[in-house]
């Protein structure tokens, strides 16, 4: 066929598994619109019963951090291990976290 496929926008696909509570990013695909992206995601990413729910998001609406910002963004956290919850006993009543 022609090159029209290249003109289709890119979509990021998020799938929630049967056990999972949240949608997880599992890949991307090209589709003409959101409905088609959803249908294609069903065929490409849930063939082996991976999911019970699908989100598709236009890739160009995602604002991502820059690799160059890594030092300023993430390294200040490296010496603050007290922020990890490993220092606390989580009561059973809290349940899933």
């Amino acid at each position, binding site marked *: 066929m022609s090159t029209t496929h290249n003109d289709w926008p890119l979509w990021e696909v998020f799938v929630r598994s049967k056990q999972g509570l949240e949608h997880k990013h599992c890949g991307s695909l*090209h589709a003409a619109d959101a409905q088609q992206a959803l249908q294609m995601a069903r065929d490409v990413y849930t063939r082996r019963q991976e999911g019970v729910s699908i989100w598709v998001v236009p890739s160009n609406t995602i604002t991502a951090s820059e690799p160059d910002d890594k030092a300023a963004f993430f390294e200040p956290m490296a010496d603050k291990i007290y922020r990890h919850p490993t220092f606390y006993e989580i009561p059973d009543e809290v349940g899933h976290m």
Partner: protein
Amino acid sequence: MKTVEAPVGTRTAALGYLLHLADNALVLGQRNAEWCGNGPVLEEDIALANMSLDLIGQARLLYQHAAVVAGEGVTEDSLAYFRDATDFRNYTLLELPHSSDTSERDYAVTIVRNFLYSALMLLLWEGLQKSKDAQLAAIAGKSFKEVRYHFRHSRDWLVRLGDGTAESRARTQAALEHLMPYTQEYWAPSAIETVADTEGRAIDAAALKREWDDLVNDALQEAGLQRPAPGTGLPQGKNGQHSDHLAPLLAEMQSLARAHPNALW
């Protein structure tokens, strides 16, 4: 063409009807599998392979059930791989190649056929869930879920292609003109269908015509496509009289099983 048929008994009708449904699924599943590795885009390649596997899965369940009804050492494999074209009872529509005047493999032909067939099966599988043949009713329950997606997929593309570019609209309209006449076969009950229907195993497809018309007309209107005249010929695939296209399809599908009988994976 008028054929003289022997009276059809209960067992012949039960078996014949199961083979009709199974052959429909197997032949279209095999035909659509030709897109594997050739799809217009990767996602559609996978979608069609998924749907072919649904259809072949339906065919397997129906052949397994038919083999029990047939007895005498018949198996699902002997039904799928060791019958010739004249024994197949699928609609002629489903054996036609994907080709058109413009293309060797035309996606509009594929989509229009899938749409015209899944619109029927949507209604048929729904009704067959109440078949007096409990095994068939169970197969219908599973198949109904699958065909709902097949219908949604083909309808979605029908609207996109009809409401798309000048070329996609022209190709889709041409595919409709080509394929619509073959749907006449749906509405002319065979002797087997009539007996199976009387006994509560089958559904009289002719009784579904009004609903089918609504499904088709609704989609065509949304797609901006014209419904062609029904045509005058009456295809006879379900009575075993096929086009020249079925034998080569079966030859390819059956060659391995016939070259190596009883081979195991």
